[in-house]
C-alpha cells in the first residue's frame, strides 16, 4: 500500500498531464487528416522535424517562441510534401508517410552532425526552453493540488484547450463539416461541389501545425534538449489512438490520457529499480493492447454490416424468382 501511495499521487497526475500533452497535440493534429479520410502514418516524422527545428530556431534567435515557430514551420513543410504526394500525386499514403518518417530521422541526424559536429544529442548550446506559466492564485486556492493546473509550459495548456475547440470546429464550422463530409462520403462531397483536394490540403496542413507544436513541446518544454529519434514512437501511438477513436477529439483525449499515464507511470517505475528495458515497453504494450482490444470490440459492428449486406444479397436473389414478394 505504501508503494502504491508513493507511485500514485499528485505528482504522478501532474506528470501524466505533462506526458500527455505532446501525444495529445500530435493526435489532435492527426484527427484532421483522419476525419478527412487520410491515413497519416507520417505524424512521427512531422513531430521529430518539429522538435529538431524548434531547438535550432531557439538557438539561432535566442527566443523560445521563435523556436516554436521554426519547429512548426518545419512540420508544415513535411505536411505539405505529404499532401502534395498523397492528395495531388495520389501516391500511397502508407509509403509516403513511412518515407517521410525515415527522411526526418536521417535529416535531423545529418544536420545535427553538420551544424553541431556531434552525434546523439544537442544539450545546452544556448537552447532557450519555454517558460513555465505560474497561474496567479492557484497556490492559495488549491494548496498542494496547485501543480495540477499551474506550472506547465504554455503548449500544455494549448493542447488541453484544443480539445473543446476541435469539438466545436467539427460540429459548428463549415470547414469542420466539409472535412467530415470529405472523409466519410467523398462522393457526396464531390456532388456538392466541395473541392476534395483543397479540403485534404487544409486538413494536412492543420495536422502539420499541431504536430509541429507537439514536437516543439518535446524539445523545448518537456525537456530542453534534442536527441536522435526523440519522438520515440509517440506519433505511431497517436495513429493507434486515431484508429480506435476515429479522430473524435474527446475519445482522442481519453486515449491520450491513458498513454500519458502509461508513460508517466513507467518513468516512475524506473525510479523504483525495475529493469528499465521492461518498464520502457509499457507504453507500447498499452498502445498495442488498446488497439487489439478495441478492434475486438468493434467486431459486432463488422458482423452486423456483413449480415446486412448478406441480407441485401439474399433479398436480391429472391426478388429474381418469379412470383416471390420482396421481403421487407
Amino acid at each position, binding site marked *: 500500500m505504501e508503494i502504491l501511495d508513493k507511485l500514485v499521487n499528485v505528482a504522478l497526475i501532474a506528470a501524466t498531464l505533462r506526458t500527455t500533452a505532446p501525444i495529445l497535440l500530435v493526435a489532435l493534429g492527426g484527427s484532421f487528416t483522419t476525419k478527412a*479520410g487520410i491515413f497519416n502514418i507520417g505524424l512521427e516524422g512531422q513531430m521529430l522535424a518539429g522538435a529538431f527545428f524548434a531547438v535550432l530556431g531557439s538557438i539561432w534567435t535566442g527566443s523560445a517562441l521563435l523556436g516554436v515557430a521554426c519547429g512548426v514551420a518545419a512540420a508544415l513543410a513535411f505536411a505539405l510534401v505529404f499532401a502534395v504526394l498523397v492528395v495531388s500525386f495520389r501516391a500511397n499514403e502508407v509509403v509516403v508517410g513511412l518515407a517521410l518518417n525515415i527522411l526526418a530521422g536521417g535529416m535531423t541526424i545529418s544536420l545535427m552532425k553538420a551544424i553541431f559536429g556531434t552525434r546523439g544529442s544537442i544539450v545546452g548550446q544556448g537552447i532557450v526552453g519555454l517558460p513555465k506559466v505560474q497561474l496567479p492564485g492557484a497556490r492559495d486556492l488549491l494548496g498542494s493540488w496547485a501543480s495540477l493546473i499551474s506550472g506547465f509550459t504554455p503548449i500544455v495548456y494549448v493542447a488541453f484547450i484544443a480539445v473543446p475547440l476541435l469539438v466545436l470546429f467539427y460540429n459548428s464550422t463549415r470547414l469542420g463539416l466539409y472535412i467530415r463530409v470529405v472523409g466519410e462520403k467523398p462522393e457526396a462531397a*464531390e456532388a456538392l461541389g466541395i473541392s476534395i483536394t483543397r479540403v485534404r490540403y487544409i486538413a494536412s496542413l492543420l495536422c502539420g501545425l499541431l504536430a509541429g507544436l507537439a514536437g516543439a513541446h518535446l524539445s523545448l518544454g518537456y525537456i530542453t534538449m534534442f536527441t536522435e529519434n526523440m519522438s520515440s514512437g509517440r506519433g505511431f501511438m497517436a495513429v493507434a489512438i486515431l484508429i480506435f477513436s476515429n479522430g473524435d477529439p474527446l475519445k482522442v483525449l481519453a486515449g491520450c490520457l491513458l498513454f500519458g499515464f502509461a508513460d508517466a507511470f513507467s518513468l516512475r517505475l524506473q525510479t523504483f529499480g525495475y529493469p528499465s528495458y521492461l518498464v520502457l515497453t509499457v507504453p507500447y504494450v498499452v498502445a*498495442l493492447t488498446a488497439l487489439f482490444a478495441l478492434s475486438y470490440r468493434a467486431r459486432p459492428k463488422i458482423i452486423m454490416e456483413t449480415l446486412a449486406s448478406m441480407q441485401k444479397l439474399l433479398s436480391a436473389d429472391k426478388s429474381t424468382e418469379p412470383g416471390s414478394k420482396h421481403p421487407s
Partner: protein
Amino acid sequence: MMNDRLRAVSGQIIAVAVALIMGAIIILMVGESPVRVFMTLLRGAFGDQAKIAGTLLQTTPILICGVAACVGLRGGMFNVGIEGQLFLGGFAAAWVGFAFPLPAGIHMLAALALAVVAGAAWVAIPAYFRARYNTNEVVSTILSNYVAVLLTSYFTIFLFKRPGGWSETPPILPTAYLPGIFDFSRLNWGLVIGLVLAIGAALVFRYTSWGYGVTMVGSAPKFAEYGGVNVKWQGFVVLLLSGAVGGLAGGVETLGVHHRFMEGFAPGFGFDGLIAALLANGSPVATIFTALFFGALRNGSLLLEVDTGASREIITVIQALIILSVSAQALVRRRGDSQAGERRWKF
C-alpha cells in the same frame, strides 16, 4: 509485356536519378561537395576486393528482409515490423547457439529454425487481429518493433549477459556458425540463402496456384474472394511467412556475422529491406538488385564518415527521397481518376 516491364524499370531509374539530384542539393546545403560524397560512396562500396565483399555482407540482411517485405506486399500486407522480427530472430538464433551444444550442422539448422519460429511468432498476434478483425497491421507491427528491441535488450543484459562483457550474450559455439565464403571477409552463406529465397519466392508467385492467389488478394481482394480464395486466412498466412523470413534474416546475421547477440546488433536492416522491396515494386528478383544498391550505399557510407565531414545518415535521406520520388510516379499512371474514387493504389 516486355515493353511494360522496360517502362517500369526505366520509371524506377528516373525516380532514383531525381532522388540523387535532390540528395545532391541537400549535401550542398550541409556544406559538402556532392561529387566528393558520391565518389567516396562509390569507392567505399566497390573500391577493392574487401570493400566489394563488405557491400555483399551488408546486402545479405537487406535482401532477406526485402524478400520478407515482398511476401507481405504481394499479399496486400504492410509488414513494417520486420525490424522487430529480425531482432527476435537474431536473439533466438544466438540463444540456441550458445546454450545448447549440438553436433555441427544440426546446431546451425536448429538455430536458424528457432529464428524462423521467433519471427513468425512475433508477428502472429498482429497477423491474427488483422485477419480476424481487420486491425491495421501497419500500426500494430510498427509499435511491436519498439517492444521487440527493448525486449531483446532486456534478455541480453539482464538474463544472458556475458560476464565482464559489453551488452552482449556469450559467443555462440562454432558448431552453429554459418560458414564464410572468403577468408578475407565475414561474408557468409547467408547471401546464398537470400538469393535462393528471392528466386524461390519469385517462382512460387509465378508458378503455383497459391502464389497466384496471394497476388490476387493483394491486387484485387474482392475478385479473389469471388474466385474462392479464403482472403482472411491467406492474409494471416502471408504475414506469418513474412515474419518468418524476417526472423531468418536475424538468425543469418547472428550466425554468420556477429556470432553473438548484441544490443542494437542490426539497426535499420528491416526498414532498408522494406524500402528495397518497395523500390522493386514487390518483385523478389528485382529486390536482389535494389538490396545490392542499398547494401552498397550502406557500406559506402562507412567510408563517408571517415573521409568527409558528412554523416552516414545522409544515405538514409537519399533512400527516403528515392521512395518519395518513386511514389510520386503514381501521378503518371492515375491521371484523371476522380479523387472520390476507390483508394486502392499500387505502391
